[in-house]
């Protein structure tokens, strides 16, 4: 019942986003949109998905939008002509899609084709074959590990893309200038600094809990990576980027991003060398279930490394670009 209300909220927010011209307001509404969809995923029993949406939507997505908008400008120009054609195309496509849904099995019906094919195997046999209570983790990390490997490589590539697009080389005097503005900021927000300093260890600890508890409850490498990165981003925002860079060097993060993918791939290669197929963890140990446990632990660790470092790389480069454009402006004047 509650999912109907949440979906109605989602539609209202989406319509408001269409009509709004102030991009910062749009990014705030997008934050509400993320919160709502996470609640919806909880009502649909998809706790792992809700967890991921929560860890991504709570911090990083709104943050990236905000930083990008501070660099590109706040307001959107109104369109010159009425978008009649666009409306027409959208209405036609929408009505065709609605026509398509009429043939679909009703929501929640247990005999829909999607529930008959592979899913019963996962639900009934994963405990004997993998030995992990969380079926989502066992499908993610063992049955469909090759798929997940592809996703991790995509995330890694996105990190490289942002690095190629936004990274800047700084002169030392610019660094000093940026540092001085950041120090100014540090003196101002005493309360925030104290609370955040107290909070960061908890967030890091919680990220580790999510990373290693993913076999038994909701969680895993993807979520843990994002939460870990959020803690570092929080530190960087309050204590200055250059302080954070001193703590966590950029080249070290890039190294870790590569290490994660490499760890994932090498687990596959090891099982290949032991005479089983790629990413078949039962080759890792004499006891197949113990091998599965070891394999899942290793590849979740790889995923966690890559996701956390790519998120930190993205944030550092966006912020670095912004600081750079600011110093350019002040040099001109």
């Amino acid at each position: 019942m509650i999912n109907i209300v949440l979906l109605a909220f989602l539609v209202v927010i989406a319509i408001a986003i269409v009509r709004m011209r102030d991009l910062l307001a749009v990014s705030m509404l997008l934050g509400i949109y993320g919160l709502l969809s996470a609640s919806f995923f909880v009502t649909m029993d998809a706790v792992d998905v809700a967890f991921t949406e929560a860890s991504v939507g709570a911090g990083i997505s709104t943050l990236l939008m905000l930083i990008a908008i501070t660099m590109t400008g706040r307001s959107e120009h109104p369109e010159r002509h009425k978008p009649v054609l666009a409306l027409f195309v959208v209405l036609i496509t929408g009505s065709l899609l609605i026509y398509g849904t009429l043939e679909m099995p009703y929501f929640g019906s247990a005999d829909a084709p999607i529930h008959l094919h592979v899913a019963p195997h996962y639900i009934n046999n994963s405990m004997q074959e993998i030995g992990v209570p969380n079926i989502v983790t066992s499908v993610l990390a063992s049955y469909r590990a090759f798929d997940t490997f592809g996703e991790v490589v995509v995330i890694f590539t996105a990190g490289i893309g942002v690095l190629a697009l936004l990274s800047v080389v700084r002169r030392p005097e610019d660094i000093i200038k940026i540092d001085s503005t950041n120090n100014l900021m540090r003196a101002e927000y005493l309360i925030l600094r104290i609370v955040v300093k107290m909070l960061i260890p908890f967030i890091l600890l919680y990220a580790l809990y999510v990373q290693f508890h993913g076999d038994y409850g909701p969680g895993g490498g993807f979520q843990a990576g994002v939460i870990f990165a959020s803690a570092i981003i929080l530190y960087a925002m309050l204590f200055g980027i250059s302080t954070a860079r001193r703590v966590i060097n950029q080249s070290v993060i890039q190294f870790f991003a590569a290490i994660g993918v490499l760890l994932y791939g090498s687990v596959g290669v090891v099982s290949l060398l032991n005479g089983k197929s790629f990413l078949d963890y039962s080759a890792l140990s004499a006891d197949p279930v113990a091998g599965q446990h070891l394999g899942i632990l290793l590849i979740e660790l790889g995923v966690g490394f890559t996701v956390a470092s790519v998120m930190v790389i993205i944030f550092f480069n966006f912020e670095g670009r912004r600081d750079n454009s600011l110093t350019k402006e002040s040099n001109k004047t």
Partner: protein
Amino acid sequence: MLMGLYNYWVVVVLMMIGFYIVIAHGNLIKKIVGLSIFQTSVFIFYISMAKVDGGTAPILVEGIKQYSNPLPHVLILTAIVVGIATTAVGLALAVRLKEAYGSIEEEEIQKKDNLDC
């Protein structure tokens, strides 16, 4: 029928709203927002299909027989993180375009391009 297909219809509406933003608005950041609405509608579609009446979250507990389908959850879980990474690349492109052209409005960028030719 209304209750049985409500979720899918909402998905179609959200998808079309995202689609409309992408094709009708000229601002690149707004287009990225539209893409992410479109993306979320696909997530909602998959997760709605995975729900089974009377089922519960796919984490094995003694005494529960009926679970929701775990496979769509896996697909969407990875898609969310990939989605934020690709959105970041899109935003980075928008930032570079702003630096190069001084604007992120589609029409103005095209005008400048035509002047250069």
